[in-house]
């Protein structure tokens, strides 16, 4: 019976595919319409040529820049546009079906040449003047069919070059040896504080992505060479571009995945507006309960995009996302195993809700466009723990925190011939609240943390960047300057202390070869948890400690080879130099080593005196061949080192050394897609436990988990981790509706990653914890801790 139960998923997969083989598409009549416009002034471009990439099927735009292409095969397509005097351009990748017409805008950049054909080869790996290297783009096919990602954007971006993933059950984003708190996220130009459910406050990671894959059209990922109008990041910037609602009719998409059900609705509103809205709810709690996991999370989220084009010169986009993360401990497990008991004993209940809403207004002039972004986001994070999960006892942890940000940003993008000039001004009001009651065992004593903190912070920033092409466009130079400041302290209030210059250059050695380089100094505000941390007497101790913006200097140089417009190779060397990183007073370690665990990062006393560096190189091949073969193969060698308490550089917790990611998908006939992803992460350093301290009864009881021996910070190293994921998609495009089914198997060969042992307290025959040394210590024992199992998933999506 048990065997039959285990085999059920396989039976089900077989059933789904067997049934679906009997269904086949009735017609191949996909249609796409759209508009070709000038990227700077939004003017339509009449009589531009639009071609379906990889075919000779195409059309010409009408007098209003509009076009329609019909009779297409459903599936993923990219459109190419050519127009005299403009650089060739490609659309975002679009998924076509018979049931609905898609709409796409293709923005073309004026080449500054009036009447000549400009042969600038468009390719899907195109980069910008400001960021000629360290910029990667993911299209919709790479998102939708990414093996092992289960349509979770946060997981998809972990397949990008230079991104380390930490442990497999979390979505931390660790870029080129930086800490997981060093990335920022933009959704259609609106900054959002987190992209994950059950997010680690003050960091980037979490359990599951919030962003719904149905919305995402493309992802731009900067691992360096940040444009000046983007601040507050040391390691990475993610720009998510969302699809627009359908222009012709309201349509519906429902998806049932391994962990959640989602409903998406999109369509037109009048002639000028469209919307796309989705809600999702997970049913992980049922699955987790069935397989006996000690925690039962439930996540809910919504996502909205509204776009109104008042006329060709004015448009408004409103985006919003929100998440509600509920959580309870599975205390009903009968006879829990040691692992289950360990987790139940230390894991606090963590519940969150968050939202972000923003309006982006764009106004286009003849040679420029202006963008005004107004947004608000809020995170409410609570966490509590009852000793032994006994709710009749006082809580050993009671944490409540809120982060609210109200932002405004103005940007002006101007083109003067071959010059591009972008400047921005921004302001922000942030409110941070924290009420914490907790016992910590620091040094050799138990201390009570009991503080409440309210912090209001006013910040401002400004940037300017100028770019120009020289020598027949072979040489491109870009220089930018940015500063950010706030009223937290006099040091942070001086804009000259946070001057952030950046410079990029690219030179085309030939049609196929180019060299690129970038250097920049970047600043990031420490987490609100750190800024707002108060001692029990209410003093903002980190303000007293003259907390500073964290700084990083980047030096990057690259070589790229593009033998064809659909094949791209690059080699990039990078060196990042960190300074003023917060250094934990309690633990005597850099906060750069923390942040990839559930809970809160940075709510402690720190000083801004830590230094570090990350360096290495990255080898990348991306191919998007007309045959439907899509490849991302990257090898990253990275060393990440931060100073320990003796100011000696030692490997940080993100010193992966070697990261290999191979993602390959192939489109086959009859709308089959198969793909694999193989990932290899070098073993990460870890810190052994201080078992002497951990065994002390008050120490253990304070956190129900062992303490690290930070005197031996990162002196041990885990074994490398690798995993193979496979995925098969089958799509059915009927006249009125579409059915998409996929099977995704994570960790096909069942690799077990060995993690640091869990520590449990020994019990006697009666189930009581054994104590020694006059009842001052528990007896501790390590139990093996592995992660990784074969995880098959079936996803079903219906669209009509």
């Amino acid at each position, binding site marked *: 019976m048990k065997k039959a139960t285990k085999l059920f998923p396989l039976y089900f997969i077989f059933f789904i595919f067997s049934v679906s083989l009997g269904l086949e598409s009735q017609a191949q009549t996909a*249609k796409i319409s759209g508009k070709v416009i000038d990227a700077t002034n939004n003017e339509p471009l009449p009589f531009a040529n639009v071609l379906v990439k990889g075919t000779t099927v195409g059309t010409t735009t009408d007098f209003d820049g509009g076009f329609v292409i019909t009779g297409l095969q459903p599936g993923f397509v990219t459109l190419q546009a050519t127009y005299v005097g403009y650089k060739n351009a490609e659309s975002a990748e679009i998924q076509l079906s018979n049931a609905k017409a898609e709409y796409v805008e293709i923005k073309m950049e004026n080449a500054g040449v009036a009447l000549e054909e400009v042969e600038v080869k468009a390719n899907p790996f195109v980069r910008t003047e400001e960021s000629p290297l360290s910029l990667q783009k993911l299209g919709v096919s790479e998102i939708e069919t990414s093996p092992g990602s289960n349509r979770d954007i946060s997981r998809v971006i972990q397949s990008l070059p230079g991104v380390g993933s930490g442990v497999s059950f979390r979505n931390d984003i660790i870029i080129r040896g930086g800490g997981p708190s060093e990335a920022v996220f933009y959704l259609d130009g609106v900054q959002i504080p987190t992209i994950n459910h059950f997010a680690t406050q003050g960091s980037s990671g979490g359990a599951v992505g919030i962003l719904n894959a149905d919305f995402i059209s493309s992802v731009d990922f900067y691992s360096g060479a940040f444009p000046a109008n983007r601040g507050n990041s040391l390691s990475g910037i993610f720009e998510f571009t969302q699809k627009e609602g359908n222009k012709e009719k309201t349509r519906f998409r429902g998806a049932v995945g391994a962990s959640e059900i989602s409903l998406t609705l999109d369509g037109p509103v009048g002639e000028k507006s469209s919307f796309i809205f989705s809600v999702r709810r997970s049913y992980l709690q049922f699955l987790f309960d069935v397989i006996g996991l000690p925690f039962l999370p439930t996540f809910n989220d919504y996502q909205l995009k509204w776009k109104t084009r008042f006329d060709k010169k004015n448009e408004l986009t409103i985006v919003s996302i929100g998440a509600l993360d509920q959580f309870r401990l599975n205390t009903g497990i009968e006879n829990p195993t040691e692992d289950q008991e360990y987790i139940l004993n230390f894991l606090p209940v963590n519940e969150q809700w968050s939202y972000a809403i923003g309006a982006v207004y764009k106004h286009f002039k003849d040679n420029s466009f202006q963008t005004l972004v107004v947004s608000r986001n809020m995170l409410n994070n609570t966490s509590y723990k009852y000793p032994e999960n006994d709710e009749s006892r006082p809580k050993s942890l009671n944490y409540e925190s809120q982060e609210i940000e109200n932002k405004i940003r103005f940007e002006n993008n101007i083109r003067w011939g071959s010059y591009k000039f972008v400047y921005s001004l921004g302001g922000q009001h942030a409110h941070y609240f924290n009420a914490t009651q907790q016992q910590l065992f620091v040094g050799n004593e138990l201390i009570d943390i009991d503080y409440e903190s309210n912090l209001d912070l006013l910040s401002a920033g400004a940037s300017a960047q100028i770019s120009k092409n020289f020598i027949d466009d072979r040489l491109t130079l870009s220089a930018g300057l940015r500063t950010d400041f706030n009223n937290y302290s006099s040091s942070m209030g001086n804009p000259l202390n946070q001057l952030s210059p950046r410079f990029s250059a690219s030179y085309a050695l030939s049609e196929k070869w180019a060299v690129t380089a970038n250097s920049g100094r970047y600043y990031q505000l420490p987490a609100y948890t750190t800024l707002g941390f108060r001692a029990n007497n209410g003093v903002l101790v980190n303000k007293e400690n003259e907390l500073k913006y964290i700084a990083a200097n980047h030096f990057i140089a690259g070589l790229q080879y593009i033998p064809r417009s659909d094949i791209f190779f690059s080699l990039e060397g990078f060196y990042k130099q960190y300074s003023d990183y917060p250094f934990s007073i309690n633990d005597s370690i850099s906060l750069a080593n923390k942040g990839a665990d559930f809970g809160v990062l940075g709510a402690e006393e720190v000083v801004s005196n830590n230094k570090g560096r990350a360096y290495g190189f990255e080898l990348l091949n991306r191919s998007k061949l007309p045959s439907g073969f899509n490849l991302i193969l990257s090898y990253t060698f990275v060393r990440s080192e931060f100073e320990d308490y003796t100011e000696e550089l030692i490997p940080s917790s993100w010193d992966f050394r070697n990261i290999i990611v191979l993602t390959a998908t192939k489109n086959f006939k009859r709308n089959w897609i198969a793909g694999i992803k193989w990932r290899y992460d070098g073993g990460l350093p870890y810190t052994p436990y201080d078992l002497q301290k951990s065994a002390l009864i008050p120490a253990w009881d304070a956190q129900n988990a062992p303490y690290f021996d930070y005197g031996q910070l990162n002196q041990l190293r885990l074994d490398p981790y690798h995993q193979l994921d496979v995925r098969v998609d089958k799509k059915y495009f009927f006249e009125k509706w579409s059915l998409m089914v996929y099977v995704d198997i994570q960790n096909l060969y069942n690799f077990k990653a060995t993690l640091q042992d869990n520590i449990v307290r020994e019990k006697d025959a009666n189930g009581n914890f054994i104590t020694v040394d006059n009842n001052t210590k528990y007896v501790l024992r390590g139990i093996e801790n592995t992660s990784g199992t074969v995880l098959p998933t079936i996803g079903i999506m219906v669209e009509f």
Partner: protein
Amino acid sequence: MKRYSVLILLSALFATVALTACKQTERSTKLPEVSQEIFKPFGEDGMTLQIDFAKGEAHNYPSLAIWIEDTEGEVIQTLFITKSVATGFYAYGDAGNGKWLKEPGAAKRPASLPYWLHRRELAKVGNAPLPSLQNPVPDAYTGATPAESFALKTIPFEPMPTKFKLLVEVNQPWDWNEYWNNARFEGDPNYSSSAQPSLVYAVNIDLSDDFTVYHLNPIGHGHYAGADGKLYSNISTLTTALNIFDSITLHLSE
């Protein structure tokens, strides 16, 4: 299947209408409001023909030819021809390779109004099949097709015979549909500049009747690439092309 049945029925209906076009009768329908009137008297006196074009929802810069034929199918006179077709000189010139200049220039578009072009050729009007700046269409009013509903008011050169035929051919690029899709004749530049083929409207007029108002109906379409001058009567594959104009109405007056 249901959809195709409707299309077949519609085709049959249109074919019937085409065959009986000569029996059109006056209808006292509300006349379209026109925002522009073009008055072009070729003759000094005679019957005035006013042709009202009511813009349809698919109207998107169409090319247009209006002409009259006798009952034998001989062209009597072209009354109106879109200037770009009449001169072979378009707002966006041909840059070669299927691409377009950003400035006006010459271009050959045999698929724009092929039925009229071949009727004209048969009538030996002009010296070449395709008009050009050097060989423009003579004796017709030429101008841009109005962007809104309009009326052409004209007095032909010659007095009209008792029975004659008024024809209109209209075409616009960009109007791809499921049948006339971009991949149908992949790589054919003439087809690419036409999308759905030209649509021909006609009505037979018998001045011995006392009718003063005639409605034109579609009778067929031209060749998709302008390769011949045949009239293809199956217009069931046309969709938005049928909505370039909501109605075309002829008013006769002395």
